[in-house]
């Protein structure tokens, strides 16, 4: 087990007064709250900060921790509590903290005792056998490729449920489900699988599984709700004269009519070619006039002719030069 430096977690010194610890905790809790932060390890950091504060805010626990800290970590950063160590705060007795001790580290448990990991009962010591309780809902996230979201797909999802074991203790169990994801889901949308969450207790009904969908970035399409946007390079003659161009969509490719006199940045809309649903999205094509890096002598001569022909065109007339 690793030694946890709670002072470092809150970025305070060993001698920090309680007000400073509270202030540091509040600030870091806001910074790393998983609903606020986009940092990849925000959730782990938020838990660390919460655990550190749980100990340091309490004078008794803090004193015990300081003692342990002196005893210290081994040179490799690992930790074993001193032989015969027993916490006076008797955390395992329950009702001691508002926090969910099941969330805390092994290090915390080795010092302050466990509290029936994952228990939802106030008191923390399992539950009464005659109690009837609905199973917990489970909330999970699922990342989909855009193609999967467009076509609908079958996905295997894994998640933890809590259930009672033979002794009546609440334990976690990994559950695997094959889920059919309907076509047309987009980022931030939820699906619900009734009765697939944690089993109920004492004949209570099972909880539900809720899945929030997230779309992985796509190399071609940017997603905005149900609309998809892509850039389409076209040649100068195609822009000038108009053209019919084959364009990929998430379904089969379609022919797009580029109008005569098209320009870079012009948007064309392929109606209903975005993500499907009750109100199907569109595919928006942004034109981009592309130029070859080298021109033949003949082409250069033609460009010169063209320059002469279109000399009344002043694309920079709005610039202050």
């Amino acid at each position, binding site marked *: 087990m690793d030694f946890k430096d709670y002072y470092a977690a809150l970025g305070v010194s060993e001698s920090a007064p309680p007000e400073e610890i509270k202030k540091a905790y*509040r600030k870091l*809790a*806001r910074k790393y*709250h*998983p*609903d*606020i932060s*986009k940092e990849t390890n925000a959730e782990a950091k*938020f838990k660390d900060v*919460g655990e550190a504060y749980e100990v340091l805010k309490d004078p008794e626990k803090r004193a015990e921790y300081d003692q342990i800290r002196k005893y210290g970590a081994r040179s490799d950063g690992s930790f074993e509590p001193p032989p015969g160590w027993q916490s006076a705060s008797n955390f395992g007795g329950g009702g001691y903290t508002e926090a969910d001790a099941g969330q805390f580290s092994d290090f915390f448990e080795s010092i302050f005792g466990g509290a029936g990991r994952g228990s939802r009962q106030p008191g923390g010591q399992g539950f009464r056998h005659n109690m009837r309780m*609905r199973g917990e*809902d489970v*909330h999970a996230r699922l990342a989909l490729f855009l193609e999967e979201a467009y076509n609908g797909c*079958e996905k295997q999802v894994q998640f933890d449920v809590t259930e009672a074991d033979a002794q009546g203790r609440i334990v976690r*169990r990994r*559950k*695997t*489900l*094959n*889920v*059919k*994801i*309907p076509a047309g*889901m987009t*980022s*931030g*949308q*939820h*699906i*619900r*699988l*009734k009765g*697939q969450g944690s089993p109920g207790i004492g004949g209570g009904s099972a909880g*539900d599984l*809720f*899945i*929030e969908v997230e779309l992985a*970035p796509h190399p071609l399409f*940017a*997603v*905005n709700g149900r609309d998809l*946007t*892509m*850039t389409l390079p076209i040649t100068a003659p195609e822009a000038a004269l108009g053209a019919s161009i084959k364009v990929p969509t998430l379904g089969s490719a379609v022919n797009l009519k580029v109008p005569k006199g098209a320009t870079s940045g012009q948007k064309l809309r392929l109606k209903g070619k975005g993500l499907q649903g*009750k109100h199907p999205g569109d595919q928006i094509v*942004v034109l*981009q006039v592309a130029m070859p890096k080298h021109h033949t002598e003949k082409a250069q001569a033609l460009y010169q002719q063209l320059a002469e022909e279109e000399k009344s065109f002043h694309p920079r007339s709005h610039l202050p030069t």
Partner: protein
Amino acid sequence: MKKNRSILEADTIGTTTFTLRELCEHGEVHAEFVIKLVNYGVIDPIDGGDAHRWSFDLPALARLRKAQRLQRDLRLNLPGLAMSLELLDDVTELRREVERLNQLLAQLTRE
């Protein structure tokens, strides 16, 4: 241990709604809290009117849970909670927009 190997069809937006009571059950909150969130415009019932007739969609449950976590973890009062959630919505939307624009920009400047 029983493993469910069959393929499950999912309920999606529009097909799942909750009554106030069901929402409280799933969110593990008292109705008073939900009513306050509705009064502050943090979550909206699909159809307004009398609280007994309210129904909520899946995003409302997600929002309720988020509100609950923020209130519990950061000890926000209701006006602070309402404002935080609105700002977080804006931030999420802006982040998505930036991502989208960066992607398009990368395509446009690709050599």
